């Protein structure tokens, strides 16, 4: 049981990184905007807490997958994140891994009746 919980936790973390990269591959966003967009697109399945989001974003920035800049929007200065070339490459690799994984899961689920 404990082993399954460990796997699930890392799967969630890995998926979230991929999902955030996907959002940013479409347009630059700030933190709150990412949480709302993720919630909307996943129909509230992915309700990411800010306390989880920012370590992920800062970690990706540190690895060169994202850059950030400040911009004024509706009178507020916000920190926007932008995906880099390295980030796009990482996104593609993660998407490929995910597709391989989900295909394998689907195959197993379909085979066992």
């Amino acid at each position, binding site marked *: 049981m404990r082993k399954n919980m460990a796997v699930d936790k890392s799967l969630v973390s890995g998926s979230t990184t991929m999902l955030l990269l996907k959002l940013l591959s479409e347009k630059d966003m700030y933190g*709150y905007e990412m949480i709302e967009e993720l919630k909307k697109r996943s129909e509230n399945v992915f309700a990411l807490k*800010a306390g989880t989001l920012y370590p992920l974003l*800062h970690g990706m920035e*540190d690895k*060169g997958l994202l850059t950030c*800049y400040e911009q004024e929007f509706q009178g507020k200065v916000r920190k926007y994140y932008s995906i880099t070339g390295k980030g796009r490459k990482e996104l593609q690799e993660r998407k490929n891994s995910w597709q391989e994984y989900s295909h394998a899961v689907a195959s197993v689920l379909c085979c066992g009746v």
Partner: protein
Amino acid sequence: MRNIMNRTEYLKSLTEQIRNKNAKTLVLEEITAHIEDQKQAYLLDGMGEDEAEEMAVKEMGNPVDTGVQLDKIHRPKTDVWMLAAMLVLTLIGIVMQSIICLQYNDLSVIQNTYHTRTIYYNLIGLLVMAIVYFADYRLLNRFIWPIYGVYLAGSVFFLHTPAFGEYYQHLRFGQAIHILFVPLFAVFCYRFREQKGKGILKAFGLLLFNILFLLFSGAFTSATMLLSFMTCLITLCAAAYRGVFGGRKKLQGSILTASIIGIPLLFFGDVLLFDGRFLFLAEYQIQRIRVMLNPAAYAAQAGYQTMLVRDQLSSASLLGGGTVGKVGELSGAWCDYVLICLTAYFGLIVAFLVIGIIAAYFLRALHISLMQSNRLGFLLGVSCSSILILKTVVYVAMNFGIGLTVSIDMPFLTYGLYCSVVNFLFMGIILSVYRNTNLLPEPKKTPPRHSLRIERATGK
């Protein structure tokens, strides 16, 4: 009863986990903005002020967990390889300069303390590097106008003092002054951010002003001036492509790239086709370009050094040699021809290894600068890396008999106090930028002139 944390308690609890002071500020601003956004959303949903605030903080999650995760990310970075390579290359430079100086016979030209002086000069350079490495590079932005004022006043003063009257001192100091403008220019580019074409014109205007000012002050060292000018253009181009000025960055970048390629072509074209008439080049400058293109035709005159270098290179062995060769007997070889002397003394394999390490060092410096999110750090790193790379390229070309015969120093290898201090200063800036990756928030824009005057009057 469950203990509900308020915003202040949450932020305090989170930032307490982050050890780096600068990172705390960075994180605090972003998290506070997020809480505000969340609160606004709840208010729009019809919640009351207090309830919205409480829910917004609750939505943030556990502050200690978040703070611990952020602390792991926000730590000063140390590039051990670059620091180690710097020490190794400095040692190689000291050894080579000592070898050349000790083998030089004409004691009317060289003093017998040069080989010990070079140790002191490098130690001073390393000390300067260490001070800058641990400093906050944003101070350059904060005090840019006083610094630039001191730079201009200092240039005029020192170029006209008797102590710098001797030609050699005057030349080296003039070179240092031109090169020192490069990081200052990077800061000014940052200052002109988001001003689109106007910002680029301001930067370009400042660049021209600086060149003319130094020319009229007597710092006329054409090669270094041109190198500094090209580096500033490269910095401007990098700023444009990065979007520092705002507006159409690809168009801005393309125009500036065309200038960088066009200007050297203009010089060579003017000399080759019109004898330097259009650019009003001095005769010795025209001669230098002609010698560079065909040194054999001037072998008995200005091309002598280039032909000597080629001759020595063609007879260099793969390993060993044990002598600095005829080039090492040229006056100033301990400055201008250290690399060809190293080739003669230790062999081609060792020479290419040293060039490889130096090239890898500066390319890494450029890479870490290009990765900076902080635009000020990006511009400082790119400008300092670029000038060091350009100097290296010109020096290596000259030492392999294929470039202009000019007085340019090579980082690590060239003897001299000014060049050692300036090169190590630039390396310190690059490493400081890297050290503070993702730690330093960008300096905020200063308010417009009229309110700045008010702030000054109230002592802010």
